[in-house]
């Protein structure tokens, strides 16, 4: 080799932090699991607090325990609905958000119509419309009322998924737009096709930027599922309402206790989801690029 290269020693050192765990191994660290431990500690503390309240007469332990089973039934239904809404919302939101950044006018137009419509409708109106229209359309069919009711229930879930998809589409679009043109210049210049470059260059960077906002939208859409009780879902809120209707005959603070427990169950779902998003954020971290130590 000819030509004068400076010895490496003269260049500014910029080695990665020593001992930094990278990739999927990050999921095995204390940092990743500490929230779970804190969560369990908080739950135990909360239960002790409630027992203390019970001793003061605000809280009747036997009544509170009686509410657990009906509410847990609602909790499992909520989990089911949340799983559907989050996967539908993210999948569809991702596709629509991407469509809005392509150079194909038709795709962009369809994406815009979708986002404009589902973002500007109040979710409760969407749910009620979907269930009502579904019910009316299926009235003359040979399905039995039970099946029709089931379909209208899931139609409500579907439109709620569309609602959050519209928001997530905008988050994904913003993420894609945040990737500098120089990145696609570079992948073009080495001969990577546009579609591949989307998957190996643009989306990983867009995703990294989008994750905090996606976590926000996930947690907000989890709580929107409480609106589904309006069309007959017995999820956490539905179960809590049913229990409340009996509670006043038992004692004064009954409904308070029920809604406290219901709120706690929402907290559990939201916390699990947002913490998982946080874990995924860690996977996408780029050493040297972050300003803040989060």
């Amino acid at each position, binding site marked *: *080799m000819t030509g004068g*290269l400076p010895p490496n020693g003269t260049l500014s050192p910029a080695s990665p932090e020593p001992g930094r765990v990278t990739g999927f191994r990050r999921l095995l660290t204390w940092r990743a699991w500490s929230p779970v431990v804190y969560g369990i500690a908080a739950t135990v503390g909360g239960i002790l607090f409630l027992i203390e309240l019970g001793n003061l007469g605000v809280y009747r332990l036997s009544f509170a325990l009686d509410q657990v089973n009906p509410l847990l039934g609602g909790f499992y239904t909520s989990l089911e609905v949340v799983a559907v809404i989050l996967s539908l919302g993210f999948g569809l939101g991702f596709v629509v958000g991407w469509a809005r950044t392509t150079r194909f006018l038709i795709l962009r137009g369809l994406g815009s119509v979708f986002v404009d419509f589902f973002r500007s409708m109040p979710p409760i109106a969407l749910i009620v419309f979907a269930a009502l229209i579904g019910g009316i359309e299926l009235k003359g069919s040979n399905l039995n009322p039970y099946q029709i009711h089931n379909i209208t229930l899931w139609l409500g879930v579907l439109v709620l998924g569309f609602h959050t998809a519209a928001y997530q589409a905008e988050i994904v679009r913003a993420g894609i737009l945040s990737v500098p043109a120089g990145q696609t210049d570079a992948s073009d210049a080495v001969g990577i096709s546009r579609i591949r470059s989307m998957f190996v260059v643009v989306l990983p960077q867009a995703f990294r930027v989008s994750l905090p906002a996606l976590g926000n939208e996930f947690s907000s859409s989890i709580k929107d599922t409480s609106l589904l009780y309006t069309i007959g879902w017995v999820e956490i809120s539905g179960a809590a309402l049913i229990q409340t209707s009996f509670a006043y005959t038992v004692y004064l603070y009954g409904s308070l206790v029920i809604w406290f427990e219901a709120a706690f169950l929402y907290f559990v779902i939201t916390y699990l989801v947002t913490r998982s998003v946080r874990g995924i954020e860690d996977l996408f971290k780029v050493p*040297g690029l972050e300003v803040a130590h989060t």
Partner: protein
Amino acid sequence: MSEIRVRGLKKNFGKLEVLRGVDLDIGSGKVLCIVGPSGSGKSTLLRCINLLVMPDEGEIYLDSVALTNPHLRPEWVRQQIGMVFQSFNLFTHLTVKKNVMLALRHAKKIDRAAAEKTAVYQLTRVGLADKMEAYPAQLSGGQQQRVAIARALAMDPKAMLFDEPTSALDPESIHEVLAVMGRLAEEGMTMAVVTHEMGFAKEVADRVVFFDGGRVLEEGSPTEIFDRAGHERTQAFMQKILR
């Protein structure tokens, strides 16, 4: 190595005529430096040569292959010609080694082990053997630009285009990068370099063109252009930058 010939190249952006009929020859294994004021279309010219920008009119030949032939895949053309940008444009989410491997894996579609071998070889060649696992944001500008050069070289290109490769760098980094480029020229790479580094142009270039208003105003050996420019416009420009 290969030669590049450009004939009657034209490009408009809307009403703005950026290239107004450019003719250019870069001999096999030769280095051509392109100098000229900003906004004269130098970058667009380079970006047309590897079809990052599609020219409106004219032909570009790599040896006997007309790159402007619509039947050629632009991806194939770009794999033949390496490009280095002013702002490096390294993939920020990938390590240095993966930056170099990416196109080998996803454009040339060679297997991981072979891609890794090539990446290690090219990075060692530009003096970055100890930075393989670092991320671009952890490197100095000069180191990043050398990674970008290694990334382009890993594709085994027939020619290299450099678009102001040192304009974003501090003096020490400029030296690093120019050293790598000088060595590449000695090894016989066909190169087109848009640059304001007159020292480099004098020392390494075989030919220099002065580019202004979307066309080649003057062409000659480095001494002809820098010291005995025929054109008034060239003289004025040289006086400003050679001060």
